[in-house]
């Protein structure tokens, strides 16, 4: 029997970098095949090549034994290749069925399509109501829409790019059941992830990449997480150490009855949030994005100031302060969106260092000293192992993980009193993630109050002293992490977090 997909010698060069260097990859029918690798290892490029979004410079591709040339995602879908991206491409104001209809090529009528959506979604354990509007769906439900959308086109190969990064532990288990059922029916699955334990429970085979090359092909169940990590990063996986904090105990950042409305029609208002972050501790805020995370961070950073007494910095009310004032007072912040918010895409890393670090005596008489900024950027690149051609590289030319390292580094190097980080290691490979986590721990142990907002529970349990859950704009009390568990937090996230909206509201929308 022919292999489902066979790549040989795939090479893709970009100016200054070889993204894929003679990559071979073989996926059998019905196989769940993991592609593992650090950021910049070339996984994304390879997937884009398979999905037709990027054309390789060299190499050949066999699909079910026949040589093919895939010149567009359209062609890929016609062959039977579906892809679920990390970031969903759904229209919030449309219903599930309408969203799916948008990508179908054949003629359809919405009623029949809805019936098919319902049938497929139930068959694969992905229950979803085709009449609901996307803005009311949780992230897990949105992902189901994306998967169902692919399944309706009867794919023979499904590519999933870090599909679990936004799911609760419970939702991850459900997804795995679905994927296993699909595989049993003969659908091949390419699973991109950096979560080693997931790959071990789910995948039949793994292709490990490093620096654009394949460094190994493994059977994950026969490996250990550390042996997989070694293949991936070329050395042992570092482990975070959490020394106790010995300094002075005091509250640095306090939120008191913080409420905030939102301009975003699909945003979440914040309701009476209380939280204290002490010097020397890391407080984690768990929860699925869309439950007020963006609003909370905008209120904390000063991008959306609130009433003065709602936020206190060392007992001083600062809720009404603008972002710049808060930064002057030593509040540093890493936002979730790296490109366009944390960094200006077309500007160089040197210029992007100026964005927030201009307080590091880059200015004199209103003029900037770019030599100092460049030096700062260079030190940041070195200390945080940012892979890039140099400080002159445009922010948008960096991979997501490397830009994240640069932004986190830029904020940490300003010696903050309060450090707030959203999704600190989102898209960052295991090696670098461990380093970033350790850096945050070390920072807190110097007496800095650290607040981490993350969707990744494992991460929060690894680095936080206390964890609270933000669901539907409300924050649960922050509990010492040894007094709670991932299961409890996960239930809090989904119990409150899953959208409980009654069917009535949706039909009201539909008839409005």
């Amino acid at each position, binding site marked *: 029997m022919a292999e489902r997909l066979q790549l040989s010698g795939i090479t893709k060069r970009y100016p200054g970098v070889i993204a894929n260097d003679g990559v071979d990859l073989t996926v059998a029918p019905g196989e769940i095949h993991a592609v593992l690798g650090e950021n910049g290892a070339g996984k994304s490029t390879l997937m884009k090549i398979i999905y037709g979004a990027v054309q390789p410079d060299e190499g050949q591709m066999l699909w079910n034994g026949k040589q093919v*040339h*895939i010149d567009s995602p359209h062609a890929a879908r016609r062959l039977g290749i579906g892809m679920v991206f990390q970031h969903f491409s759904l229209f919030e104001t449309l219903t599930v069925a309408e969203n799916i209809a948008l990508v179908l090529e054949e003629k359809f009528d919405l009623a029949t399509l809805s019936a098919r959506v319902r049938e497929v979604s139930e068959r694969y354990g992905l229950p979803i109501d085709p009449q609901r509007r996307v803005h009311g769906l949780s992230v897990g439900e949105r992902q189901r829409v994306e998967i169902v959308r692919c399944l309706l086109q009867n794919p023979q190969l499904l590519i999933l790019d870090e599909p679990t990064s936004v799911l609760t532990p419970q939702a991850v288990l459900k997804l795995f059941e679905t994927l296993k059922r699909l595989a049993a029916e003969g659908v091949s699955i390419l699973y991109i992830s950096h979560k080693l334990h997931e790959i071990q429970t789910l995948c039949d085979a793994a292709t490990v990449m490093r620096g654009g090359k394949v460094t190994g092909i493994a059977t994950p169940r026969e490996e250990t997480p550390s042996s997989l990590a070694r293949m991936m990063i070329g050395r042992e996986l570092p482990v975070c150490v959490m020394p106790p904090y010995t300094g002075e105990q005091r509250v640095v950042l306090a939120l008191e009855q913080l409420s905030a409305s939102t301009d975003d029609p699909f945003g979440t208002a914040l309701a009476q949030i209380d939280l204290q972050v002490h010097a020397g501790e890391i407080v984690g805020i768990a929860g699925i994005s869309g439950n007020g995370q963006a609003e909370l961070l905008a209120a904390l950073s*000063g991008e959306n100031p609130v009433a003065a007494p709602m936020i206190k910095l060392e007992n001083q009310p600062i809720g009404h302060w*603008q972002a710049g004032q808060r930064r002057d007072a030593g509040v540093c912040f890493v936002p979730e969106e790296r490109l366009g918010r*944390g960094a200006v895409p077309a*500007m160089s890393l040197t210029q992007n260092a100026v964005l*927030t670090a201009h307080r590091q005596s880059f200015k004199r008489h*209103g003029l*900037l000293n770019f030599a100092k900024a460049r030096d700062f950027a260079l030190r940041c690149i070195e200390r945080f192992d940012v892979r890039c051609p140099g400080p002159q590289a445009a922010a948008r030319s960096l991979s997501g993980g490397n830009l994240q390292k640069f932004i986190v580094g830029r904020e940490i190097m300003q010696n903050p009193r309060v450090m707030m980080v959203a999704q600190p290691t989102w898209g960052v490979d295991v090696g670098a993630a461990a380093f970033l986590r350790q850096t945050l721990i070390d920072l807190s142990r110097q007496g800095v109050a650290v607040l981490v907002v993350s969707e990744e529970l494992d991460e929060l349990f690894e680095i936080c002293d206390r964890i609270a859950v933000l669901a539907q704009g409300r924050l649960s009390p922050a509990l010492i992490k040894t007094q709670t568990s991932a299961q409890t937090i996960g239930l809090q996230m989904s119990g409150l977090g899953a959208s409980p909206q009654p069917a009535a509201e949706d039909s009201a929308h539909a008839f409005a």
Partner: protein
Amino acid sequence: MHLLEPRPQPSRKMRWLAPVYAIGLTLISGALLFTALHKNPFHALYMFFIQPLTTGYGWSELLVKASPQILIAQGLAVGFRARVYNIGAEGQLIVGAIFGGGVAIMTDGSSAAWILPVMVLAGAIGGALWGALAAWLKTQFNAEETLTTLMLTYIASLLLAWLVNGPWRDPAGQNFPQSIMFGDAASFPVLLAGSRVNASLFITLAVVALFQLLISKSFLAYQIEVAGQAPAAARYAGFSQKKAIWLGLCLSGLTAGLAGVGEVAGPVGQLNLNISPGYGFSAIIVAWLGRLHPLGMVLSGLLMALIYLGGEAAQVSLQLPAAMTGLFQGMLLFFLLAADAFINNRFRRRKPATRFA
């Protein structure tokens, strides 16, 4: 299938080559245009672009026409960098001319040395105020500045028409809509005898030098640029979007106002209805063609001035309509915008994946 694909890095080479391509394509299209009008294209292009520069006077006129456009473009570029699209510099020029000219009219007969500096100051304030009006509308009511600045231009030119037809009309001017001719104390001294080149050129040079420093080094310009390129990043860093809007519109109004004074206290010598042949609009092209770079805009300003000169020459020697100037300006902008697409994009290379198989 898309014809273009995004480049991994914006091409620095294309950024500077785009104007060259645009000029080349404009010349080729101009030649075709002349041919269609039954003129010898080589002769016509020669008359348009070279003949005006064969005399010393031609060169002096080049400076006279380039100076206000370069001056206005400097201010516009600051706004454009902040993605604040002031297209009403013509109106700000007129208001600057009214403010400056008002000083001249009210001090008529005096030969005090302070008159000219006060005119310059008043012109700068007038232009900046006219820009500030649009900034206020934008920050207060979110009114699109592209519309408001353009509409304010019509208000400004009607205001000027009212003034020179009414209160400020020259009593001895046989009812022509124009003010008195300004005295020596209210005029820039001529630098080269026999030409119209005057000391307002120094204002332009000073502004170019100042803006070169501002744009390459200042924290203010950096903030403006961030606000323009990535508003969310500006908010994140605590840079005020409103500040960028106010600065962009006031600074470009200010330079346009200065240019207005330069005209009425220079070659025009009075307030009338023809104080600017559209410098406020052509400066937009100067700014883009010069890549919003203070020195680049000096070159593009000279080119635009040459197009004005060529247009005048073409009327005389080739019996072509005055619209020729506008046509060349339009073609230049059109080709420039088209060529600019290649800064961030390139032609998609069609290369089969199996080529080496």
